[in-house]
C-alpha cells in the first residue's frame, strides 16, 4: 500500500535564541581578572584545609568543602599537562584552526588552567612543555586578557 504521507512536504522553522545575560564574576573571580588586567599577574587562592593553591581561584575549595583562605601570587609560567589541536571550525573559536588548547599548571598552583597555546607548531606540542603567558595589549579584565601561552 502506498504511504499516504510520501508526498507530504515537511517544513523547517529556523530560529535562534538570543538572551542577554550579565553574569556577576563575584569578588573572587573579579580579583583574579583584575590582577590579569592591571598587573599582568596570576593569583590563586589557598585552601585552609588541603593547602592547595587554586588557579583559577574559588571562594570555596572544591575538594574540601571549606572556604578558601589567603591570596597567593603564582607564576605566569607553567607546564602543559595535556593539550589538543583543534582542526575544525565550530564557529565559536577565539582563533583560526588549527590551534592548541592546553591544561597548564602554573608554577605555584596546584590546579590546571585551561587556555590557548600559540607561537607553536602543532607537531611541537607535548606534555611537559614549559609555557609563558602572553598578555594582550588592551586588557579588559577577562580570561582573554591572556592572549595565549607560548613556549618558553
Amino acid at each position, binding site marked *: 500500500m502506498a504511504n499516504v504521507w510520501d508526498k507530504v512536504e515537511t517544513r523547517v522553522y529556523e530560529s535562534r*535564541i538570543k538572551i542577554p545575560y550579565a553574569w556577576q564574576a563575584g569578588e573572587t573571580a573579579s580579583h583574579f581578572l583584575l590582577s590579569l588586567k592591571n598587573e599582568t599577574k596570576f593569583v590563586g587562592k589557598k585552601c585552609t584545609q588541603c593547602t592547595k593553591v587554586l588557579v583559577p581561584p574559588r571562594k570555596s575549595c*572544591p575538594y574540601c568543602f571549606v572556604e578558601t583562605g589567603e591570596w597567593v601570587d603564582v607564576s605566569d609560567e607553567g607546564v602543559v599537562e595535556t593539550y*589538543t589541536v583543534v*582542526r575544525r571550525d*565550530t564557529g565559536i573559536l*577565539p582563533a583560526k584552526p588549527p590551534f592548541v588548547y592546553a591544561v597548564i599548571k602554573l608554577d605555584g598552583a596546584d590546579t590546571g*588552567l*585551561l587556555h590557548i597555546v600559540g607561537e607553536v607548531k602543532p607537531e611541537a606540542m607535548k606534555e611537559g612543555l614549559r609555557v609563558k603567558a602572553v598578555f594582550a595589549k588592551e586588557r579588559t579584565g577577562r*580570561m582573554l586578557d591572556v592572549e595565549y601561552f607560548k613556549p618558553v
Partner: protein
Amino acid sequence: MDRAAIIGIGQTKAGGRMKDFNYAELLYPAVVAALEDAGITIEDIDNIVTTSNDFWDGRTISSMATGDVSGAWDRNISCVEGDGTFGAFYGMCRVLSGVYGTTLVTAHSKGSESVSPYITNAAFDPIYVRSLGLDMVSACALQARRYMNRYKISEEQCALVSSKNHRNALDNPNAHLQLDLSPEDVMSSRMVCDPLKLYDCSPVSDGAVAVVIANEERTKKLGKRPAWIQAVSFCMDNYLLGDRDLAECAALTKAAKKAYETAGISDPRKEIDVAEVYDAFSYQELMWTEGLGFCDSGEAGRLAESGATRKTGDIPVNPSGGLLASHPVIAAGLIRIAEAVRQIRGEAGKMQVDKDVRTALAHGVNGVAGQSHCVWILGKE
C-alpha cells in the same frame, strides 16, 4: 528495602535529521512501545519522570513540552535535566519511596536541530572558561590525550573499540549509524581534535526511549519479563577540568565499587555477563572499562586487543554498538538500560551475547568528559 524492576522498555530507531516528527512526536512511539512491552496501559502508570535538556530542546521547562506524549496529563510528572540514567535513578527512588507503584521514565533528543558545539560550549563556566571556545569534543580530546599518555594507550587501540562498536551496530535495528568500519577506516578518518579522529567520536543523533520501573508488588502483579534492579550508584567529579586528574575516572571507580558492594559482586569481570557503557568517544570505552573494574588501570587497550570485550568475548561491552553508533544526547544512557534489559531477557536478537545473561551492567554519564557517572546493575533475580 523494597525492590524495584524494569518491566517495560520502548525505543525509537535513532537517526540523523528526522524531519517527519518534532521531538515530542518522536518520543510518543517510544512511550507507547514501553507500555505495550510491559503489557500495561497508561492507567497503570502512577507517575512520570521525563529527562531532557532545555538547551538541546531550545525550549525552557522542556519537560512541559513532552508531558502530553508521556501520558502525563492529569498525573504527577517531574523532570531531570541530564542523562537518562539519572532520570531513571530518580524514577526508581520515587517507586522505592512507597508513594508510587510505577514510574514511566522517558528521554528524548533531537540533536540534529541545533548546533552541538554551541550547546556544549555553554556547559562551561562563563567567567573562566567559556570564552576560550571549548566544546565537548575539544574538552574530551584533552582528557583522551592525558589518559592515553599516562597509560601508553595507542590510537590503534581506540580504533579497535570504534570498529568493534560500529560493526556491532550492524546487528542493531535501532542504531543510527550502521557502518562496517575496520580499525584502518577509523585510523584514516580525518583528525578533528588530536588525538580524536572523526570515527573516534559519536554522532549527534535523534532518538527517544522510555522505560517502566515498578516496585516489587506491582512487578509481581504486572511484570512479565522483569529485569530486577540489583544496584544503582552515582558519583561526581569536579566541575572545572583543571581541578580533575583527567587521566583517571575516580568518580566512576567509586560509583562502580558502591554498586558492586550493593549487588554483592566481588569480581565484576566474572560476574557481569554483559555491559552497555557510555562510549561517547572510543577512548572513553577504554577508560570506563577500567573504572568499572573489568581490568586494571591502563590495561583496557590490551583488554580490547584480546577480544574480551567483543560480543563473543568473556566481558562483552556494547554489543548494541553503543554511543559510537547512536548518540541521542540525554537518551543515550537510558538506551543503555534498555539494551541491558534486552540482554537479560534474551531478546536482543542478533545483538544477544552467547551466554546466559544473569547480570548486566548499564552506565550513563552526565557533564563534560565524564564528570558524573551512574552505574546500574540489573539481573534476572
